[in-house]
């Protein structure tokens, strides 16, 4: 069987399992004697709990137990944590309120966890949950940053009386203000980055299991990072010490970030399993997912860009209010700060940048990382400013971008990042050709004859993936390091198991990781298995998010593979009776340089285990190597997306006519999977731009968009066939040259769409999501510039 090389378009190995219904997801796990948990959730956005009366519910059929926040506290189970410390401008630490897994005295958003009912069946648990009587003193909620920061607004947590969790900044304020003072032109925009609900296909789920014989817990859960879950549940929440807590995340059906976090539900299930002496299972229904999965985005921003007389960017000034929801989710504080402001330089050489960000509590679901996490918000700010600035000074937006591109690498931006490699002109040039930019005017006129407004928009995005090195992220406030681990276990006949701390929730690791092993060891891809998602198998790992699994996870595998080959050479030296320095490894064969003596990879593996040919005191038997890899820098994927669309001014309906994406992801392992990631990312970005938006009722704090009847997901029919291409500058910061591709589409797309929409209607007043209603009004405003609207 043949070797599968890096760069080959390999069909995903795991898909046979998934598309034939053989996937094993958390909800497929059922433990003997298991009971079912249903959460009593707050129907109010803000209320004080006067009393919880469970007496009627307790006597209902099948009820095993009803537990509340008091039971949690009595067992000394700690609250949920936010693992990234942010300090305000004045040096004070962020003001975080307590986040109990079951409410203690107060509820702070619709869907907040009040109690858990555990019963023999889900239906019995639901019936009993409805019979739990909670006496609430309902209070006035604040759901958006403006009302939360208004004078006299109710405080979501007493710890942050003005609802400001932090008031953070980055960059050189004096230098930035000075640049603005001498600017020839200033472009200013007010931007709302709409709130999104993740909507992974598989809802969250958890099964907690307790083995009293060994006093040990097992938690099966929908996690992108089971080791982080174990660390948090053990070290901070205090469910059980690490060696007594096994976390298994089996197949995970999508996450987009929402399954990074450690939530109340899995905490309660694993704790309750011991409490009631039975395995406890919970599976979210779709309504619960809308209400309680951590949401994404939700920024309100004032952004300004200063230009000189030649159309060069002098400075950027950004003020953002970030809605963090009612509690700080696991990484909530990092998203609008260190994952956002350091990206504000975009692809441009900007001498001075100053960003201020207020993190704000509101009576809404917690907000945390969602595909791109901070980087889409930054790209939207930069790419809208750049587009509008070009229009205002009468310069072609492509030319304006090129004029300001960074061309020398490494490039130190004024906001932390040191870009290591890139060729932004190459991506732009290719994209302009593929999009037939020159022919746009003709297409616009032709559309006008059909009564349609045609627009074109660019997004020259940059992202930072593989957040690292650990020491650097630690200095920025992270509570963890962001390395990755791998262990390569070679079996005696030469097949290979790779244990990785990355964990696929749809990325196709079982294929790409095996592809790397096949390429490096010269063995068929079928001979490689990828093992992930189980803390008892993989010792430690940091999981999958932030497009890190290629750049960081695979680099760890590469490092372990190097060690395997080095050990193999030692064994081969004994087997082939040659000096170790004369052994070469190529195409799956160990050979003695300059001779025809060689042994296959499988033969050497067998020799390593039977250990007949070497002295066990000189060389250890076996062939198994591990590695921890900590990168030297972030990676910086970048590219140009061009969106061309038409607006029907009569209805506001938008049709995307053409999408061109030229991305630089560095070295690509599997183009098929990379294209899939780009396609999905664009679809989500288009979803944010045109369709998706979480709406809370400002008076009641109810989530208005709590189902697919009101929350509009992107559909296949909304999208054209994408034109996807790449340019390549290998990443110098990891051994494989990989940059990462998982979030690029979602980062690039919103600005490209809105730039195209504003180009079509001829003014900048287009909100996200640009729903048909919003676009109808935007068209009317274009037609009647003096109308009251």
């Amino acid at each position, binding site marked *: 069987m043949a070797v599968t090389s890096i760069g080959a378009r390999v069909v995903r190995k795991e898909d046979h399992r998934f598309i034939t219904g053989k996937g094993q997801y958390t909800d497929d796990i059922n433990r003997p004697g298991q009971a079912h948990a249903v959460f009593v959730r707050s129907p109010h956005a803000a209320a004080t709990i006067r009393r919880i009366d469970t007496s009627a519910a307790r006597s209902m059929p099948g009820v095993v137990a009803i537990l509340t926040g008091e039971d949690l506290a009595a067992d000394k189970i700690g609250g949920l944590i936010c693992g990234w410390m942010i300090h305000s401008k004045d040096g004070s630490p962020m003001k975080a309120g307590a986040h109990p897994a079951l409410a203690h005295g107060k509820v702070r958003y619709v869907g907040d966890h009040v109690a858990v009912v555990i019963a023999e069946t889900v*239906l019995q648990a*639901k*019936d009993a949950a409805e019979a739990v009587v909670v006496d609430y003193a309902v209070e006035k909620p604040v759901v958006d940053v403006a009302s939360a920061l208004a004078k006299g607004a109710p405080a979501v947590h007493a710890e942050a009386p003005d609802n400001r969790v932090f008031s953070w900044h980055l960059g050189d304020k004096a230098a930035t203000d000075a640049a603005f003072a001498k600017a020839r032109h200033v472009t200013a925009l007010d931007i709302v980055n709409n709130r999104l609900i993740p909507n992974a296909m598989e809802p969250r789920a958890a099964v907690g299991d307790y083995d009293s014989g060994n006093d040990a817990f097992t938690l099966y859960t929908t996690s992108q990072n089971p080791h982080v879950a174990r660390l948090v549940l053990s070290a901070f929440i205090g469910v059980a010490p690490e060696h007594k807590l096994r976390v298994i995340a089996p197949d995970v059906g999508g996450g987009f970030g929402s399954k990074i976090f450690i939530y109340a539900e899995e905490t309660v299930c694993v704790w309750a399993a011991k409490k009631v002496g039975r395995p406890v299972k919970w599976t979210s229904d779709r*309504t619960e997912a809308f209400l309680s999965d951590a949401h994404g985005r939700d920024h309100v921003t004032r952004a300004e860009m200063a230009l000189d007389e030649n159309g060069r960017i002098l400075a950027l000034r950004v003020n953002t209010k970030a809605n963090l929801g009612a509690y700080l989710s696991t990484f909530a504080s990092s998203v609008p700060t260190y994952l956002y402001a350091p990206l504000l330089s975009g692809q441009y050489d900007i001498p001075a940048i100053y960003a201020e960000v207020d993190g704000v509590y509101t009576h809404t679901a917690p907000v945390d990382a969602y595909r791109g996490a901070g980087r889409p918000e930054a790209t939207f700010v930069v790419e809208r400013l750049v587009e509008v600035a070009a229009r205002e000074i009468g310069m072609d937006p492509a030319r304006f971008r090129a004029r300001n591109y960074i061309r020398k690498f490494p490039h130190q931006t004024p906001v932390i990042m040191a870009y290591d490699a890139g060729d932004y002109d190459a991506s732009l040039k290719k994209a302009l050709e593929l999009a037939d930019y020159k022919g746009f005017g003709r297409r616009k006129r032709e559309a006008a004859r059909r009564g349609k407004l045609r627009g074109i928009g660019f997004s020259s995005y940059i992202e930072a993936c593989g957040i690292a090195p650990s020491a650097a992220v630690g200095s920025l406030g992270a509570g963890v390091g962001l390395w990755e681990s791998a262990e390569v276990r070679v079996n005696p006949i030469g097949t290979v198991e790779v244990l990785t701390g990355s964990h696929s929730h749809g990325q196709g690791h079982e294929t790409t990781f095996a592809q790397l092993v096949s390429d490096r060891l010269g063995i068929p891809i079928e001979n490689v298995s990828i093992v992930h998602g189980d803390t008892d198998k993989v010792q430690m790992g940091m999981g999958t998010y932030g497009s890190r699994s290629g750049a960081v996870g695979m680099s760890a595998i590469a490092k372990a593979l190097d060690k395997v080959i080095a050990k193999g050479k030692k064994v081969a030296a004994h087997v082939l009776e040659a000096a170790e320095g004369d052994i070469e490894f190529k195409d799956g064969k160990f050979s003695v340089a300059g001779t025809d003596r060689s042994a296959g990879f499988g033969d050497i593996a067998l020799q390593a285990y039977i250990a007949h040919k070497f002295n066990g005191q000189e060389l250890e038997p076996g062939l198994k190597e591990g590695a921890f890899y900590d990168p030297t820098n972030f990676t910086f994927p970048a590219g140009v997306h061009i969106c061309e669309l038409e607006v029907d001014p*009569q*209805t*506001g*309906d938008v049709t995307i006519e053409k999408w061109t994406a030229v991305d630089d992801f560095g070295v690509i392992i599997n183009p098929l999977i990379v294209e899939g990631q780009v396609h999905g990312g664009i679809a989500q970005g288009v979803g944010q731009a045109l*369709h998706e938006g979480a*709406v809370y009722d400002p008076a009641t704090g109810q989530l*208005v*968009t709590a189902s*697919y*009847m*009101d*929350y*509009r*997901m992107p559909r296949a029919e909304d999208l054209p066939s994408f034109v996807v291409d790449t340019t390549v500058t290998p990443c110098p910061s990891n051994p494989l040259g990989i940059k990462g591709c998982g979030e690029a589409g979602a980062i690039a797309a919103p600005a490209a769409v809105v730039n195209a929409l504003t180009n079509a209607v001829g003014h900048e007043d287009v909100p996200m999501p640009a*729903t*048909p*209603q919003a676009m*109808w*009004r935007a068209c009317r405003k274009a037609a009647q510039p003096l109308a009251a609207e």
Partner: protein
Amino acid sequence: MYAFEFHRPTSLRQAASLLGKAEDGRLLAGGQSLLPMMKLRLASPGTVIDLGAVPGMTGIERKGRSLVIGAMTRHAEVETSPVVKEAIPALAHLVSVLGDPAVRNRGTIGGSLANNDPSADYPAACLALGATIVTNQRRIAADDFFQGVFTTALEEGEIIVKVVFPIPSRAGYEKFRHPASRFALAGVFVARRGGEIRVAVTGAGDSGVFRWHEAEEALKGRFAPKSLDGLTPSTEGMNSDIHADAAYRAHLVGVMARRAVERALRR
């Protein structure tokens, strides 16, 4: 879902008797609205009576100048029926933009009409075409049948058996879909039969489907899109929500009406 009693009668008489006896009984006729509501625990009928095994309630037939569709006929059958395409192509088109393939393969015309969702498509066709809803007890004109949001003229124990559509000379349906749910944000069915012109609007009004008499009058002069130029219904009585306020809905009704006339003339 809460527990409920389930019956699957094999005759119309048996179904009616079960419905009469049941306290809080609901008919199951495709279940594309009822079952999701039950799953969400927003509907909790004590008894569900499935009409799926009652003979004689399905089928499409042309009878003289009318098209007759059995109440339990599924949307997909209407969508693909050569008889419908020949007699009232606008009706086949309407069904092709109704729901999604799953809904069209399970949902029925009788179920949709009895439910009278204010954003459903079928009520617009019935009203504009002047259909007659035939029940186990009587014949009800469409003008009398739709009585408001989720409210119809159906009495206790009354079951729709079939729907009789007079065949128009011209008809067209245009729908602007609700971005999320795909129901009609504004759907307009126009029909011309002899000198009679009827325009029915669904999705937009706060009391469900209604006839837009002003547009009917305007089209009497000349059955052409131009006759509706500048015509928009009053925003009074229009629905308003996060997807479309009253002004946008009223505007869309005007646009959809013109496009429906265009479509009616295209054949």
